């Protein structure tokens, strides 16, 4: 099967020839083609081509995509810094626009045509359209966006001491997500748009499942329901980091038919299948730390284990790193993912 056909078949629940190899790499693509890492975020043309070429080389199904985890701060009026040193892999906050309740009171929803990275994301999506690729829009999840507008340490305190402030911020994040997706749907049509929503800040290394249930779940559910009501068929959720205690709540979130849900190495694939396998494509979850620092054999073995666990997921499985592959990951380790799929991922 051609790469595009494989992903189409998976989304339509048709029989596949082999496990797709999905991507979570930006800076790695830049390094692979000799571009600065920052170009993955500030130059849509370069970002698109770097990914296109790298995916061709490594036989990756799906993509290219555009986005980063610090989404939200710049869009709501803060500052972003693009990666400039050899130790940086993604945009990071320059400042936060909300540092107090007074700041929160002044916060307004941004213009989705002009705010922050959104014009760059639109330019990128037009390239996706031109090249016949799936149209994606990568956004932070409600809690991650909230934690990018306001320092997460303040947000954490508000959840316990000033819950109404936390709710206000989360409500704004939710409305913003809906407005952005609605804008993409208007331009490309609901059938073609697949929102990618990354929620790293809601991990249990940060908040308890109780706070997740009170502060994150209601907004995530609301956003998902409204996104699907726009006519969008599939939502991709990246449930990043240690989120095992949140899984029972995530399982209540509608994600489409099927949805797509990816996990970090902290969530076992078998566990993910138990919670989501009947209605979502499971994606993951090779530890990027091993891809960065392990030997090729270690990566290969780890990929084999992931494939063995995920291959028979009822709605399908795609092998992917559990989070972004670092820009300086040894390329041979990334090749090992391809090799493992070729050796163990066949559906015969």
């Amino acid at each position, binding site marked *: 099967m*051609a*790469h595009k056909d494989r992903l189409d078949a998976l989304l339509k629940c048709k029989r596949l020839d082999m496990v797709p190899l999905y991507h979570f790499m930006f800076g790695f693509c830049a*390094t*692979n*083609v*000799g571009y600065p890492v920052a170009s993955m975020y500030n130059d849509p043309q370069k970002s698109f081509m770097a990914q296109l*070429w*790298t995916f*061709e*080389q*490594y*036989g990756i199904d799906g993509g290219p995509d555009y986005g980063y985890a610090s989404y939200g701060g710049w869009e709501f009026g803060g500052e972003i810094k693009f990666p400039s040193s050899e130790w940086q892999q993604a945009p990071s906050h320059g400042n936060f626009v909300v540092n107090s309740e007074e700041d929160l009171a002044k916060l307004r929803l941004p213009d989705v045509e002009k705010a922050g990275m959104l014009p760059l994301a639109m330019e990128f999506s037009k390239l996706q359209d031109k090249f016949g690729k799936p149209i994606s829009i990568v956004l932070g999840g409600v809690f991650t966006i909230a934690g990018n507008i306001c320092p997460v340490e303040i947000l954490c305190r508000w959840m316990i001491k000033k819950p109404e402030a936390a709710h206000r911020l989360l409500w704004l994040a939710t409305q913003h997500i809906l407005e952005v997706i609605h804008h993409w749907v208007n331009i490309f049509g609901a059938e073609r748009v697949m929102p990618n929503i990354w929620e790293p800040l809601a991990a249990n290394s940060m908040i308890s499942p109780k706070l997740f249930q009170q502060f994150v779940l209601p907004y995530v559910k609301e956003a998902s329901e409204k996104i699907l009501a726009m006519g969008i068929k599939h939502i991709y959720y990246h449930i990043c980091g240690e989120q095992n205690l949140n899984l029972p709540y995530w399982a209540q979130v509608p994600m489409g038919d099927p949805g797509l849900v990816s996990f970090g190495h902290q969530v076992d694939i078998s566990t993910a299948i138990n919670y989501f396998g009947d209605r979502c494509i499971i994606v993951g979850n090779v530890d990027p730390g091993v891809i960065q*620092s392990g*030997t*090729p054999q270690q990566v290969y073995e780890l990929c084999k284990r992931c494939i063995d666990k995920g291959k028979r997921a009822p709605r399908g499985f795609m092998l992917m790193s559990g989070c972004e592959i670092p820009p300086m*990951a*040894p*390329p*041979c*380790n990334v*090749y090992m993912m*391809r*090799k493992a799929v070729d050796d163990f991922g066949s559906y015969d």
Partner: protein
Amino acid sequence: MEFKQDRMSRQERMQALYNYQKPDRVPIFEDGNFFCMINVGYRLTDLYSNPQRAFDALIWTCEQYGWEPERHCSSAHAVLGTPDFGGRIKSPESIYSQGLSVEETAVQTEDDVWNLKMPDPKTAGVIPIRMEFSKLEEKAGMPVTFLARSPLCSGAEICGVERFCAWMHKKPELCHRLIRMGMNHTLEALQHWVDTFGAGKVYYQMSSPTESNQVISPKHFQEFALPYHREFHKRLRAMGINQFHFHICGEQNLNLPYLARLAASPDGWPHPSILSFGHEVDITNAAQYFPKDIILGNIEPALFQSGTPQPIYELCRKTIEKGKKIPGGFILAPGCGMPPRAPGYNVWMMTKAVHDFGWYD
């Protein structure tokens, strides 16, 4: 990577070339193992200190890029003029380094030349490390590589190229002594390989960067290089070594007629040997000079480092089209050591170009 399936194994492909038959497709070699080390996440210094890592990096990278690991163009010399004869070298530790560099040459004065002693051919410099590497090659059923400089280059390494160049004019006897000592040391170390593995398994690789016309004239080439090439091959034949790869490095167009006469004579190397050329030598011309040998090359390495993919792909295509017509056989490769930090996609252009244009149908 949805390429056509190979119809031959790696061994079959190379055997076809050695039999002057057309393989299924143009083989691809890397040049130098530096790129492999970085590709796998190892340090460049590991190439000179950790044979297992060096070997693993080679095998994994060759698999990833579809290169042939057997008879790979090594860049880790078994014999080195500077450390073997008592000078000091520095390992490539900074991100801007690619290979070993000389901190202090073994010879600095005329007296040093006359007082120079022959090193131990089993223990000098990196010889023990390279021996371990060769054992790994043997264990994998591969020919065991032994890379050394040409006699002139060996001699120049002992005292440093600038000093050698000056002495070629002013004190030629010093140059001849150094060349002879360098050559003899190389052959003694090579004998150690023959004794360990048997002559039939040894794949001898010679590089000759200092003989390029960017450094010496064809006149000096005739005086200081050619006679020793002749003698060297005589001694290789006497050892029973019949697998030879000559990396004719850099701008050597003015030397080619002399090398061609040597190659065509009984004093030359066995045929087919693999002859690799830098981008400075057109491969069609090279094939005319050396009709009985396999031509390897010759994409400019700097392009992989600093160029963009499409021009590299185009250059590979053109080179493949020329190379496929070479009667003696052709292997696509960079013209010299692949820069260790060349963008992977640029390097992959060789693979893509071979799979698009390199089939012999």
